[in-house]
């Protein structure tokens, strides 16, 4: 069933209906913007629904005779109403737009005569920002930044406002919709992981093989500055956890020279986790990048100035996102932020996990090299793997992120939000996290098990591991620690392993049977075994040298 999005606004939002392909949710316009409209939306909303509150203070500003205090009071009243219902409606998601400063003022240059200018808007925005920090089911849509980016004149239409109380041009509604989608994509984890880049005429102007290292356009002047700024944007994206890769047709020697000798390269060789610089076709390169990183093709965004390459990669690998670059090079940075970052890499919070992501993948590739050199079991032993399994002091945001992003080693592929996870813990469901470390470094939290206890059965509702650590038999150690804790806390139950086949989790099809569990009667996918028996099996399967700590 499709979720519903309830729209509560003080302006006419019906023109959103003109915008195609809305959000994958059915939009219900509650009409009106006051406590009673919110009450109406809340009464209708069921689990999984979204309430979008959009307040526009701009148009009302011209004729208003309200004092700044009254304007502030009005805005806060709605927010306080929302706040008082957040805890009681944890399964409903609230998205609220912030507000922008009004451009209309008759006082022209004498700013000091209106000391109240902006006070209401700033107070309201501060309250909204604070609520996003305090509540998991409350998100902010940064309308303010949209107005800054496209300008009042670019978004607003006085004609439509006076005729129908619709304040925006259709372009404005489209941008509002795409920002709303971006916020929701971030919340539900519908995001990409890797940015794959071409080099010539993408990261710099010109062709290095022809123009030489000194001839390419990359500098603090003119067109070169547009490419430099584009690189800076990419670099900051990397710093919040997006992996970078190169897929280009060049002589590796030329490219190495650029990395070694060009003073203005903002991106360094080490910033790229995988580089495919050769003369093969880009589809083959793309597939290899995906295989090396152990990620599905739907985790990738490919940026290339050549329409031929974009059509070729996008045509043969439809899972890869291939955005169209602007014709004008000067628009690269603006385009990148609005059409690539907001669309494919939106984020609500930056976790420590994100900051260390690129480094972790480099360690992952190092391990892979070693595993090719020696046999698998020797290799695992040589890693000095240590895992920590614990059910207290859980990092809920990371665990929710794992359920959203993990596809391959994921037995049931159930997606949970932070709010869902908190609710489960409140309901007494046992949740286990696993942290991984080895001699190459710490991977952080990479495993999650959710166990629901019912009478004498313990159901493995979720059992997943990040693809970064697949193939090291860690899963057996993790399950062992979980089963041991279940026996300790709840007794010798029947462990039930649920398996829900998807397109991507074929890898774990036989996981439970490999632990010696057997198919349940009347089921083709679910396995069971008594906990003590399972523990015995798993102890025998632990690789030598692996340290399992239970906290």
């Amino acid at each position, binding site marked *: 069933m499709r979720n519903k999005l309830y729209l509560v606004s003080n302006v006419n939002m*019906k023109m959103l209906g*003109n915008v195609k392909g809305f959000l994958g949710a059915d939009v219900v316009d509650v009409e009106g913007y006051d406590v009673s409209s919110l009450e109406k939306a809340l009464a209708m909303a069921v689990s999984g629904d979204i309430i979008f509150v959009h307040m526009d203070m701009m148009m009302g500003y011209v004729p208003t005779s309200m004092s700044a205090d009254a304007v502030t009071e009005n805005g806060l009243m709605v927010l306080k109403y929302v706040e008082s219902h957040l805890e009681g409606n944890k399964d409903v998601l609230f998205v609220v737009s912030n507000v922008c400063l009004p451009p209309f003022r008759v006082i022209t240059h004498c700013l000091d005569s209106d000391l109240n200018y902006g006070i209401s808007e700033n107070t309201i925005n501060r309250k909204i920002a604070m609520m996003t920090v305090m509540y998991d089911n409350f998100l902010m849509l940064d309308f303010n930044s949209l107005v800054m980016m496209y300008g009042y004149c670019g978004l607003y239409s006085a004609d*439509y406002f006076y*005729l*129908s109380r619709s304040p925006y041009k*259709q372009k404005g509604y489209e941008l509002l919709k795409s920002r709303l989608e971006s916020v929701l994509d971030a919340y539900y984890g519908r995001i990409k992981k890797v940015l794959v880049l071409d080099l010539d005429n993408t990261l710099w102007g010109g062709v290095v093989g022809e123009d030489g290292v000194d001839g390419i356009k990359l500098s603090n002047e003119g067109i070169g500055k547009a490419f430099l700024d584009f690189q800076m944007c990419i670099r900051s994206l990397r710093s919040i956890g997006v992996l970078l890769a190169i897929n280009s047709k060049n002589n590796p020697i030329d490219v190495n020279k650029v990395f070694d000798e060009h003073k203005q390269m903002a991106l360094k060789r080490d910033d790229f986790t995988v580089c495919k610089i050769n003369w093969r076709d880009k589809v083959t390169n793309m597939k290899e990048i995906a295989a090396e990183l152990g990620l599905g093709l739907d985790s990738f965004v490919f940026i290339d100035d050549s329409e031929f390459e974009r059509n070729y990669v996008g045509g043969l690998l439809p899972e890869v996102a291939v955005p169209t670059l602007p014709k004008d090079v000067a628009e690269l940075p603006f385009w990148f932020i609005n059409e690539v970052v907001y669309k494919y890499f939106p984020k609500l919070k930056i976790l420590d996990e994100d900051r260390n992501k690129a480094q972790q993948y480099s360690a992952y590739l190092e391990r892979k090299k070693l595993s090719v050199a020696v046999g698998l079991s020797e290799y695992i032993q040589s890693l000095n793997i240590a895992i920590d399994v614990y059910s207290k002091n859980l990092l809920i945001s990371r665990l929710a992120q794992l359920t959203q992003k993990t596809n391959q080693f994921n037995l049931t592929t159930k997606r949970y939000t932070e709010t869902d996870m908190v609710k489960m813990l409140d309901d007494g469901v046992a949740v286990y996290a696993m942290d991984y470390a080895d001699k190459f470094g710490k991977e952080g939290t990479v495993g999650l098990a959710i166990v629901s206890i019912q009478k004498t059965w313990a159901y493995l509702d979720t059992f997943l591991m990040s693809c970064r650590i697949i193939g090291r038999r860690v899963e057996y150690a993790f399950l062992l620690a979980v089963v041991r804790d279940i026996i300790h806390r709840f007794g010798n139950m029947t462990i039930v392993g649920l398996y829900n086949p998807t397109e991507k989790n074929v890898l774990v099809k036989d996981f439970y049977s490999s632990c010696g569990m057997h198919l349940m009667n009347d089921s083709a996918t679910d396995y069971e075994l008594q906990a003590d028996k399972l523990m015995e099996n798993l102890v025998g399967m632990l690789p030598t040298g692996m340290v399992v700590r239970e906290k």
Partner: protein
Amino acid sequence: MKSTQEILDMLRPVLAEVFGVEKSTITMNTVPKDIEAWDSMGHIKMFAAIELELGINFGIMEISECESVADLIKLMKEKK
């Protein structure tokens, strides 16, 4: 200057999309009461879509005085 027929051909896909009707429904003689979705809000949506899709802007008087496809085409002729 574009002919009446050419302008009608430009408008047809835009109006059909906004009002959710077949392109053939939109003719020179179409007036709001012929199309269910062409109410006062539909009227604004139509002009907003024309602005975005065809890049033609109208003023508030033009929008409020336009009462048919024929009026709309007349307005557009004045613009080009």
